[in-house]
């Protein structure tokens, strides 16, 4: 009996440890200031007003603590003051998708509570908050709850107004933050960019409180025409959590785009070809071009997903990336939502002219003097001109040679739907000019890199773009029947040897037993 009780106690203690909320501890304002001046001032500024040295080059900009706006809070929507635990959490875990890291690896828990105490001083938050978010009875996720959530999400344009029908935040409005900076509606299919996690409870909290300092409103506010009951908010939270698109998740281990061979068939030359569905997507992080002139600090594209297919004549690659805006210079609606001046959207594939024989690849920023690269550059076109694909050879930023894409046989076709660009590029495996063009060979690891431009975001053009480092493209050779034949032979040999052993052992003891099966 005693033992059982002890066990129960242990289980309860353990579960408490796992789900235990962080209990606020009193922080020391003076100690907090010391830590703040060493760690935080660079972005948030000495006065806590978000005007640190990094201000101009960060998107989103550093929080201005004097405004008192906190994005992640669990106090009620009409309560300005956050809970200490909310501020603590942002310091401990950071804000995913921003430059704010989590500090638990460098600061002790007490350090972080001291920071909470000091940071609150900037907004003169002295009293404890009174109203908390009411979670009611949580509704667990289920197909029914998700279906209801979807309905509420779309009903009367409630969430669709900004987040779009697919949740990718494909903008139809220009949104602004509290320091009149441009903000984008969250792409709900990329949960790793949620500042406060995509746990349904966290999503419920965001829906209930809104996000201070942004145009995301509270849906618990009875004055809102779009108000939702607690139960309804749980349904929407469950639906939003269900939107995560796993194929867009970057897997650091996966650095190879594997192109399958299509025997005899024509390659898909359109992004909408169904055969792409059967290929394996590989997703890479896009980082802004911050290594060469002109450095670019405020990107909007963050990942690119690539697939490839080939046959005996050509290779086709499908590049897919979420872009909230279809940027068409000359189009009135596109111009209205874009940062001025609007540019075309675009994507580029970079390949070495020669597959490296050893390890050394061309410099990943457009090649180098002794190792040139091919670049295939697709642009979305303007109101009056169609999409284009250009082909260039380059030996670094400075040494760029325009080539004739048509002569090489390079074709491209793009389509934009629900906040996602999908662009197919097709090129023959070999060309007439092996000195200047990559000749694709199956079974070799070919370095490949990508770049993307969002023409509606800070006028991305030229060197203002996002890019990847080198990854690999592999034209998967067909392995034929060899492995399966060898496997059968080896298995047969083993079986034969074992049988022979057993039989000879048995034969030594009682010769008649096995005679009816014949002797070896």
């Amino acid at each position: 009996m005693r033992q059982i009780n002890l066990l129960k106690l242990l289980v309860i203690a353990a579960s408490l440890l796992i789900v235990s909320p962080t209990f606020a501890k009193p922080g020391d304002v003076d100690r907090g200031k010391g830590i703040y001046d060493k760690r935080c001032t660079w972005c948030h500024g000495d006065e806590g007003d978000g005007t640190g040295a990094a201000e101009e080059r960060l998107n989103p900009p550093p929080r201005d603590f004097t405004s008192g706006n906190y994005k992640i809070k669990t106090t009620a929507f009409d309560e300005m003051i956050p809970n200490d635990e909310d501020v603590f959490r942002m310091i401990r875990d950071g804000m995913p998708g921003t430059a704010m890291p989590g500090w638990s690896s460098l600061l002790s828990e007490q350090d972080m509570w001291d920071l909470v105490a000091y940071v609150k001083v900037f907004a003169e938050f002295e009293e404890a908050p009174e109203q908390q978010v009411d979670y009611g009875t949580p509704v667990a996720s289920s197909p029914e709850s998700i279906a209801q959530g979807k309905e509420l999400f779309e009903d009367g344009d409630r969430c669709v107004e900004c987040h779009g029908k697919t949740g990718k935040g494909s903008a139809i409005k220009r949104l602004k933050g509290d320091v009149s900076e441009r903000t984008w509606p969250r792409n709900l299919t990329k949960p790793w960019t949620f500042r406060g996690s995509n746990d349904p409870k966290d999503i419920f909290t965001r829906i209930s409180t809104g996000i201070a300092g942004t145009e995301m409103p509270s849906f618990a506010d009875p004055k809102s025409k779009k108000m939702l009951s607690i139960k309804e908010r749980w349904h929407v939270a469950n639906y939003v959590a269900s939107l995560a698109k796993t194929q867009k998740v970057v897997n650091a281990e996966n650095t190879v785009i594997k192109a399958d061979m299509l025997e005899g068939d024509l390659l898909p030359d359109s992004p909408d070809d169904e055969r792409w569905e059967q290929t394996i997507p590989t997703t890479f992080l896009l980082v802004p071009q911050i290594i060469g002139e002109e450095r670019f600090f405020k990107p909007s594209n963050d990942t690119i997903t690539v697939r490839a297919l080939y046959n005996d004549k050509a290779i086709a690659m499908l590049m897919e990336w979420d872009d909230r805006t279809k940027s068409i210079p000359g189009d009135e609606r596109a111009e209205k939502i874009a940062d001025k001046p609007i540019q075309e959207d675009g994507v580029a594939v970079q390949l070495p002219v020669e597959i490296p024989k050893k390890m050394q690849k061309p410099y990943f920023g457009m090649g180098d003097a002794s190792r040139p690269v091919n670049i295939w550059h697709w642009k979305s076109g303007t109101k009056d001109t169609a999409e284009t694909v250009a082909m260039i050879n380059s030996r670094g930023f400075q040494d760029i040679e325009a080539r004739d894409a048509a002569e090489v046989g390079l074709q491209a076709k793009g389509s934009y739907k629900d906040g996602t660009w999908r662009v197919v590029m097709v090129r023959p495996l070999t060309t007439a000019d092996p000195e200047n063009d990559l000749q694709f060979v199956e079974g070799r690891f070919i370095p490949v890199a990508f770049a993307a431009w969002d023409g509606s975001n800070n006028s991305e053009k030229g060197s203002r773009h996002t890019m990847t480092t080198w990854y690999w493209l592999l034209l998967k050779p067909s392995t034929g029947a060899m492995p399966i034949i060898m496997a059968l032979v080896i298995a047969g040999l083993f079986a034969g040897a074992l049988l022979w052993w057993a039989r000879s052992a048995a034969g030594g003891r009682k010769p008649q037993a096995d005679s009816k099966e014949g002797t070896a």
Partner: protein
Amino acid sequence: MTKKRRIPRLLQLVLVVLGIYLGFVLTFDVILGQVIPKSLLTMYMFFVIAGVLMVFTFTEESAQELIGPIKALVEDPSKKMVRNVVFVIVPLLAGVYTYASLMPSFEAPVELRTIHPAPPSSVKAFGKRFDLATLENPYRKFEKEDPDKFHKLVKQGGEIYIQNCQYCHGDRLDGKGPYAAGLNPTPLNFQDVGTIAQLQESFVFWRIATGGPGLPAEAAPWISSMPIWQDFLSEDEIWKVILFLYEYTGRQPRSWEHE
């Protein structure tokens, strides 16, 4: 003879070999965080199995004890069921192993990385030559001579760092900036004792000023994303950033003098 209840010799052997294998994995992969290359582990395990077999078959008696159960499995008519099962499983495993080892894996080629390439004796930057053996941080002396001035220089260095370097090396200087995961090789972690604490300031100056493209020929894998900072920062600014790197992490640069 006392019949003690104990683990059969064969099982003992398997357990010992498995234990050593897990020991390797635990020590290197988990504790040290340095994954053993598969080929090396295969070699180690070859010697381990050879050694363990020698110990287990040291006397005639122990060898018999080891082989006994295997012989019994084949020869003992009462073990027919087990025998049939083993005779199906073993050839199957052999077949699957053959198939798996013949199928190409399509794993990305391994790229080795030279973390701290040997510096040249002198380097060219800002249109002049620097002798790395004698080059010193011109601001280092203020650490003792004029702490207030030193503090201001560190602060300026921090501002340059946050505007230029944090994207990759991070606010915490731990190599985990917002874009670090999209780069290969990954940015250096200055908090690690194996990085700037092992280097002289002149080395750090060289690596910053000439960046990835300034790496010497032996510095595999030649694809560092480190910009050529002499294109963006002045000499003074680089020295101030270096002060900040050491100050923030609480490390000391290596120097020729032993104090």
